[in-house]
């Protein structure tokens, strides 16, 4: 079973991922902020990590940096809630090693597409 980690301080978003993905055969884990997320990455491996940008204690980009140090090939999808497709944000995220960027509110079909694509991508890497 594919393991997915959702790191977001918004309960609604965490619940949504569970509701959306669990019936489709994914195991969904959640963390409330960047620090918690890193703790989980240290203990366990995940196929994909969905990471929010704006979080208390540790924001998405900082967490991403550390996650990539821990697991250089980890697929991390980062999503911004400022819905401002700022070039600099995307560049920065890619620079830090994000697989792709999404903007809230995310169309759920996009989430499925990304999960599908990233598995192909990972298979190609192995």
């Amino acid at each position, binding site marked *: 079973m594919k393991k997915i980690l959702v790191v977001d301080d*918004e309960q*609604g*978003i965490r*619940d*949504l991922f569970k*509701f*959306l993905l669990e*019936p489709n055969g994914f195991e969904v884990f959640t963390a409330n902020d960047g620090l918690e997320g890193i703790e989980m990455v240290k203990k366990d491996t995940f196929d994909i990590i969905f990471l929010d940008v*704006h979080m208390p204690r540790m924001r998405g980009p900082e967490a991403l940096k550390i996650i990539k140090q821990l697991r250089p090939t980890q697929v991390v999808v980062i999503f911004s*809630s*400022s*819905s*401002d*497709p*700022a*070039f*600099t944000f995307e560049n920065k995220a890619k*620079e830090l090693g994000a697989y792709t960027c999404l*903007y*809230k*509110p*995310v*169309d*759920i*079909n996009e989430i499925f597409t990304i999960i599908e694509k990233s598995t192909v991508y990972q298979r190609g890497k192995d």
Partner: protein
Amino acid sequence: MQMDKKINVLIIGAGKGGKALIELFHKEPWLNICGIVDTNDDAPGIKLAKELGLPTGKDFSPFLKISGLNTVIEVTGNPEVEKSLSKMLPPGVELLKGASAKLIWTMIEEREKEIAELSNDRKAILNILEDVEEANKQLKETQAKLIQSDKMAAIGQLAGGIAHEINNPMGVILGFAQSVMKRIDQNNPLYLPLSSIEREALRCKTLVQNLLVFSRSSGTGKTSMEINQAVEETLLLVEHQAKMRNVVITKKYAPDLPMIFANRNQIQQVIMNLANNALDVMPDGGTITITTTLTIPSPLEGEENLSTVALAKVEGEGKFVEIRVEDTGAGIPEEVKHKIFEPFFTTKEPGKGTGLGLSLCYEIMQKHNGTIDFESEKGKGTTFTIKLPIIEEFTEKEKKKVLVVDDDRAIINLAIAFLKKFPEKYQFTSATDGFRAGQAVLEFNPDLMILDLLLPGIDGFQVCRNIRSNEKTKGIKILAITGYDSPENREKIFTAGANDYLSKPFEIEELGKRISKLLAE
């Protein structure tokens, strides 16, 4: 008749000269006009005299008998008149004629000149006043624009601030609605309410995104794009609507338009808004004509045929692409013309229009150094014109691609910071090890590679050799970066196939120099 004045004068001859004399004399307190004589009843001096209530006549002889008369001025220039006058002149009465009359003439002429000069001065003053008025008008326009851009900036700031707070809950609402919809089939009675939730959530999403266009930070994402194609794609989206409303869309695309450097989404949004406005104003059918043209401005082409709401100036004098959206609707009423670009101004029913369309267009055009303008005639229709400058160097083709490879992020950031300063010149990407560098070379196909030699795994020397041994990548310029500058190392670098090298630490200016030198070769 007052005879107590010092001079009591009779004027003979009421042409231009006589009239001027009356004008000159009648206000003087020491002078009394006893009469004015001319054989022509319609002479200008006679008319004036009548208006002023002065005695007039055709024959001068009765006037000569007026007691107290002491001066006669003869300005007919007729020798016959002069002759008979001299004979009849009572004793003690002076006759001014010939030379003396000439003196008066000169006086009058000088006075006229003076008046002419004065009126020239007046004209000059009027001109200045006009200039002042014009400057005032421009100032007011600028002020209006400033107020408007202030408003827009405020909206942008507000939107930027609340976007996060709205997008999160909206994400949850949209997400749950969509995921429940996925689990039930379309006949389920809950499908309709769920799809309504989805639709309205998407509407909020669009609204927030639109508002964010006003925030200064979202002016990026420009690429070189083909205007006609972008217009065509946008029109596909409105064609269905147009058909339903009996509106014909006519397209007049200029062939061979140069590419422009712009944010494609935003340009399409502008065209979409203009087309939608045109549709809305033609509920009973009509024609939308979309024209694209390449314009090379001539200095004489003024703004007089543009509307009074002159907008963001096209910077520079260069060429630009013009897109016109013309409708056959009711036109824009005079009293709202100055308001249509204001955010939230709408004449549509609540729920039908947010009033953001044109203000977004304005903002987007401003972010592209372009202009938006309109002409509208009541009952005939409206034409919106947008102009986008063509920045010739900004074509993607001419941009050089640079790949930066270093395991040290600081070096990558330094190089990228430099490359970013010249978006018109460089495109770039980066890699942090030899393996990824190889992948990037194949995918990105760079013109130049900045390559650190000490890399984890496959090192820089090996990367160099691989590139040089592959037919497809052989031509890539390689600027090697090394921590150890020694003669042996240098030799090794060039043998591996680098074109140039730079030893750490280096100045960013030096890096820039080397990059442009290598790319120019």
